[in-house]
């Protein structure tokens, strides 16, 4: 089932990189889904504390790992947050983090479907 939140080409590339091991891909997805909420926590805490470096770093990591799974929209949102924080501008980032979180929910569902498909 095609899903616009995930770029199938990215998943195919990742799968090829890990030797077409679908089980391993499932573990990677679990790991991504498990680790990411903490990064959102870091983003919010950083915003609350006005800590630009913390925000930039958390956004950078989310951008990188999300791109690995082909979560193109989420990665793009994280890139904007990273760029703003890198420029020292945390004003108005709250709504963007909200957007990212919504995107992450969609990505989670899509990735779970992929992981679940593989299990089936």
């Amino acid at each position, binding site marked *: 089932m095609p899903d616009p939140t995930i770029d199938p080409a990215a998943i195919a*590339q*990742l799968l090829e990189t890990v030797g077409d091991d679908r089980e391993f891909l499932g573990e*990677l997805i679990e790991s991504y889904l498990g680790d990411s909420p903490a990064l959102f926590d870091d983003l919010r805490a950083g915003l609350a504390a006005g800590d630009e470096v913390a925000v930039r770093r958390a956004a950078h*990591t989310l951008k*990188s*790992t999300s*791109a*690995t799974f082909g979560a193109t929209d989420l990665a793009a949102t994280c890139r904007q947050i990273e760029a703003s924080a890198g420029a020292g501008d945390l004003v108005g980032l709250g709504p963007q983090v909200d957007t990212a979180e919504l995107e992450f929910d969609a990505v989670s569902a899509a990735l779970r479907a992929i992981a679940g498909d593989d299990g089936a």
Partner: protein
Amino acid sequence: MTDAAGLILVVDDTALNRTILSRALRDQGLDVVEADNGRVALGILGAAGARPIDVVLLDIEMPEMDGYETLSRIKADPTLRDVPVIVISAVDELASVVRCIELGAADYLTKPFNGAILRARVRASLAAKRLRDAELDYVDRQSATNEVLKVINRSALDLETVLTAVIDQATRLCRATYGAIYLAEADDFRVAATSGESGLTEYERANPAPIGRESLVGRVALTGAPVSIPDVLADPEYGLQAEQSVGGYRSLLGVPIAKDGRIVGALGFARTEVQPFSDGEVLLVSSFAEQAAIGIENARLAQTIDRQRTELARFLSPQVGALISSPDGEALLAGHRRPVTAVFCDLRGFTPFSEASEPAEVLGVLRDYHRAMGEEIVANGGTLEHFAGDGMLVFFNDPIEQPDHVARAVRMAVAMRDRFDTLRLTWPERGRDLGFGVGIAEGHATMGRIGFEGRYDYAAIGTVVIMASRLSSDARAGQILLNRRAFAAVQGLVVGESVGDLVLKGFSRPVPAFEVLGLRESGAEVRTLPVAKGVT
């Protein structure tokens, strides 16, 4: 070789990225170590004794120490700058790529990366690293070999210095924590040189390795071939547990030192971590075993020559001993003719004395006599041709030329007579009746090596030798007899007189002979010598 696959260091603060990269690399048969920031990565790269990293995959955005800083430090370190670094980052601005390449990165990949491109880039960097390693290894081995050869050249006599140079270089090149050279002695192998700090040396000196499968060296001796023990703790036959607990070693390598197909020793290397020695390292170390064999052989030859020289010097003057051992020695031994002064001396009454005395007494007297006479021979620069029982033949002017050779011969004879008279009084009753007679003749002789393989003598052949011997036979106790040529040469030196024409065995005509009564000191004062009484 176990290192052939390559060891890749993956540096990324995100566990997920490390997991994906490690999996992709391991699928290629590569070994991987991981670090979650630049500081940790530098620690791994700089760890002493560990297997060296072949390629670094480096993330940029990291806490503690970022990729730029890490890359700068790697390239600033002479021991690390040849390790290729592939930057792999989600920082995809062109400026970042340019900056990394300028800092010395071999390549730059953006995340998410393509597996095929990653593999190709890593392979290319590995190939470059191998080439560079081979180049450095070659230079390193050459310089190590040169170093050892230099030491062999400089200190051939000092085997320990030579072996220490060999083991130092070999231990360093094969990245062992401890190295030792063992030499075969009777039934076991003893440590001759070591490299690397370890309490092992002391233990090994106290506990030589027996021949057998329980020890590394014993196994080398048994098989005559290189022995690699990947992990002593996992080797059921390895039996030196006490030694292992002293040294704390795990992986061992031993290679034999062979000479003419015989195992004369072994080189042993140890690592404190389980890190088996590669085939390449076996080859490398074997070349050092060859150098050790050359060193051992050279030292033995040098010691033999030195011993021969020392032995010779006990009878010849040291200069003569040195000359015989020198390149000119061979020419001298080949034979030559020149004027010499031959001195023959022996004891009057020795045969009855030796028949009537205990063997120990006879040998004691002879020992005293030989020692005293030997000292005078050396002091005057004489060459002892041979001695048989109480008789000695000494000649002068050969192999070293001595313009005053007759004078030397006469001074020696007079000194010998003095010494003999003092010595005689210390001997037991019967020995005191012995007398000392000398014959001195000057003339041409053929000098050189005579005899056969295994039993050669440096000898003088000619009438002059026979003449000296006959004059000595004719001399009474305490008498020094000279032929005419010898007496003519030392007239200014000695006080002497004719004893008439002697009829000597083997000479068809009577031979005019002269007796030395004493020496003129400084050409003026006359010192007459007491004439010893004794059996004629």
